[in-house]
Structure formats: C-alpha cells, structure tokens
C-alpha cells in the first residue's frame, strides 16, 4: 500500500515539475549550474572507471581464450559488446545513482528540513519546477557522458589487450568492426536517456518528500540510492526485452 502511495506521489510530483514554469532567465542559470554540478562534476570518476573496466573485460576475455580455433579478434568484439550494451549505460548509471543521486536527494532534502522549500512556496514559486526541472534538463546531456564512457572503455580494453601482449593492434581493430550492429547503439542511448530521467527524478522525489532533520537527510540519501538502483535495473530489463528480443 505505501509503495502504491509513493508511486502516486512520484507522478504527482512530476505533474508539478512540469506545471507553472519559473522565470526563464532564472531557469537558464539554474540549468547551467546543474550541468556543472551533476554532469561535469562526474566526468572524472566516470572516465576513470570506464577505462579500467574496459581493460579488465579485455584481460578476462583474453585469459579465457585457450582454444586456438577461436580467433583473437574476439577480445575486441567482446569488449565492444559488453561496454556498449551494459557497462557504459547501466553500470555507470548505478555509479551515478550513488554520486549524483545522493547529491540530489541530500541537497533537496536539506532544503526541505531547513524550510527553504516552504520559503519558495510562500513566495509563490513552484518549488518543484524551480528545484527539479533544471536537474531533468541538465541530465539530458547525460548521453554525452555515456558516449565518453564507451569510448574510454574501449580505449582501456585496447590498452590492456595490446600493451599486455594478448593481441596485436591490427587484430583488435579488426575485432572491433566484427558484426557491428548500429541498432545496438540506438538501444544503448535510448536506455541512457531513460536512465537520465530516473537518475534526476527518483532521488529528487526522495529529497522533496522527506521528513525530519539532518540525520534523516543521510538516511534519505541511502534509501534513494537503493530505490534508484532498483528502478534502473528493472527499467533496464524491460527496455532490453522490448528492444533486443
């Protein structure tokens, strides 16, 4: 019952977010600020993780290729497929649920407990639009993050495979081009956009409707991470079922 209530409340919140708009000039500067905080601020960790995960995938595949009948190009093929299909869009989004998600929950949540949201409402400002809309718009640039993650993941795989002496550079490049299906990229970016929306709105919900004080802000951030991950994984399942099978 309480879950149903929360889901209803979440959609009512979304209705409010797209309700009465905040003054344009104000909104614009808020969006730039969010792009800076949410997107640019995450680039470092995303780049770092992507590179090393790509590298590990390549090494794992190479080490398991003992059969001489299987071509070495498979190392690059496997790295490309896993990075594009899952590691970049899904795995990085889970990381972002921890980083960006808890940041959103705790920043909105602390505004709630210190009555800053009430202050906005008393002034006649649509606080849902003011606080959440710029985050949703900023997250529309999230596909760029994932694109960079894909690129660096494959670069990491290349480095590990070629400099680690598992395959030659030519073999790797050849493998990268093996059986490439462009629709896989469409699939990856469709789900990235959905994930972007989830990453901005689910944590926002947990912050906006939280009750209590400073201690509860921390708890809300944790709960928010759990639920954002759950929603991401479930969405991933349905999108994959829908688009790939």
């Amino acid at each position, binding site marked *: 019952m309480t879950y149903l209530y929360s889901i209803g409340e979440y959609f009512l919140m979304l209705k409010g977010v797209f309700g009465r708009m*905040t003054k344009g000039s*104000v909104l614009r500067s808020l969006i730039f600020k969010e792009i800076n905080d949410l997107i640019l601020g995450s680039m470092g960790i995303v780049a770092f993780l992507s590179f090393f995960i790509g590298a590990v995938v390549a090494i794992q595949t190479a080490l398991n290729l003992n059969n001489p009948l299987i071509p070495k190009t498979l190392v690059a093929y496997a790295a490309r497929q896993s990075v594009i299909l899952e590691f970049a869009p899904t795995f990085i989004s889970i990381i972002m649920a921890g980083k960006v998600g808890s940041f959103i929950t705790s920043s909105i949540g602390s505004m709630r407990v210190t*009555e*800053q949201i009430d*202050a906005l*409402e*008393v002034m*006649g400002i649509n606080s849902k639009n003011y606080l959440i809309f710029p985050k949703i718009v900023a997250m529309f640039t999230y596909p760029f993050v994932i694109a960079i993650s894909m690129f660096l993941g494959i670069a990491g795989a290349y480095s590990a495979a070629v400099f680690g002496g598992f395959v030659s550079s030519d073999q790797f490049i050849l493998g990268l081009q093996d059986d490439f299906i462009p629709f896989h990229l469409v699939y990856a970016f469709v789900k990235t956009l959905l994930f972007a929306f989830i990453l901005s709105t689910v944590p926002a919900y947990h912050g906006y409707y939280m009750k209590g004080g400073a201690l509860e802000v921390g708890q809300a951030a944790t709960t928010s991470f759990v639920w954002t991950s759950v929603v991401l994984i479930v969405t991933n399942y349905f999108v994959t079922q829908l688009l790939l099978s």
Partner: protein
Amino acid sequence: MIEVENLKKGFKGEQILKGINYTFERGKTNLIIGQSGSGKSVFLKCMLGLFKPEEGTIKYDGKPYSNFSDEEQRELRKDIGMLFQGGALFDSMTVAENVMFPLKMFTKQKKKESMARVREVLDRVNLEGAEDKMPSEISGGMQKRVAIARAIVNEPKYLFCDEPNSGLDPTTATVIDKLIQKITHENQITTVIITHDMNSVLEIGERIAFLKEGLLAWKGTKDEIFQTDDETVTDFVYSSDLFKKVREAQLKGY
C-alpha cells in the same frame, strides 16, 4: 488586517485546530503564544495556504483567501513576507543574492536598481557590508536579520514570523523583536508573530492570542496578560520563576 473565522485543521484523525476566530490588526505586532505542539505553526501555515484547512475562512483585508484562484493566491503571496524559525536562507546564495531573490523573481527591476534596494534593506537591519558573505559564514542573529531583510524587500503588507528569536541569546533576541516592531509600525504592516518566549510578550506584545488545545483560550494586550486571573493563562505565563517573582511582587503592591 487578517480575519480568521472558524478555522479547523487536523492530521490523520487528530484535530489540531478546533475552530479558531481571531482578527490580526494592521500596524500592530500580533502575537500568537502557546505551548510547544499547541498548533501555532500549523495555524500560521494555514494562513499562508501551505496547509489546506478543513473548514473556515481567512480574509486578507476583507478578501477571502480560500476562494482565491491560483492566480490570485500567487498575487497575494507577493504581498506576504515570511520569517521562518531557522531563517530558511538559501544556503547556495550569498546574503545579497538571498535578499535580492524576491526582486529577481517578481519584478522587472534592473540589477542595479535591485542592488540599491538590497543595500537599503540591509542597512535597515544593520547589516551593511555583509552582502558577499554566505549564510554559513555569519552568526545566527545575523542570519535572522538577513531573513528579515529578505522578507521585507518587496514591501509586503503582511509579515509572518515563526518564533523569530528561538535559538538566539536574550540580547540578540530583543534586537530582533524590536526590529520587527519598528518595521511593523513604520510600514504599517499586519504582522503575526509566533512565540513562546515571555520576554517577547513583555517587549512587543501589542496584541496577544493565547492558543491552547486547538482553541483560542485568551486574548488581550501585554498589560492585560499580567493582570488577568484566568488560570489557563497564568499557568502558562508564570511557568517561569522570573515571572512568578514579578507576579508576587505585583501582588504585594510594589
């Protein structure tokens, strides 16, 4: 002037406000007193429209608030200034940006004009020179003064203060009280102040409403509150030793 008629509000079966009738006058400090948990904040939030009351009407200068359209409510909100218990300053903005915020959102003023107005109100609350500080860098008393500046920057007709001096030392608390009173008189604002601080009552209690168990238990002025024999009131007023002594002295005829 704000008239409240038969205001009722509860949460999940528990009735908090059980039918309140009261009129807040213009140009006066109107105090709402009562114990913690007696529903003072709920009362205030009903008047602000942050809570929807189950019954009753609230009239702002004769116009009923519950019947206002969304547009009218928004217009009214521009005439309202609110001082929250903790100040509720936006902690991502500087002092000047906080005070300028209502101007930026609701007026077409140029930045220069707004800044002049911001300086003017900051002067008024004795905070000249603090424009570029962040809320976290200034003391609690200064934060309250910034919050007052933000509440009055758009020249509101109605000012609401929820425990304006909670968490402040007695000297600073008195400064804040006096400041609110001065602004109320000079700008002829209808000011509503929630407090459970008897010092405030003594300082600025021009009109007092005493809230108990969801009802208006007593109303009067600060002179009357120290004269009354009404037990519900005296129990509350003389719960502090200091005021007990004052009372004894009064009764002995000093």
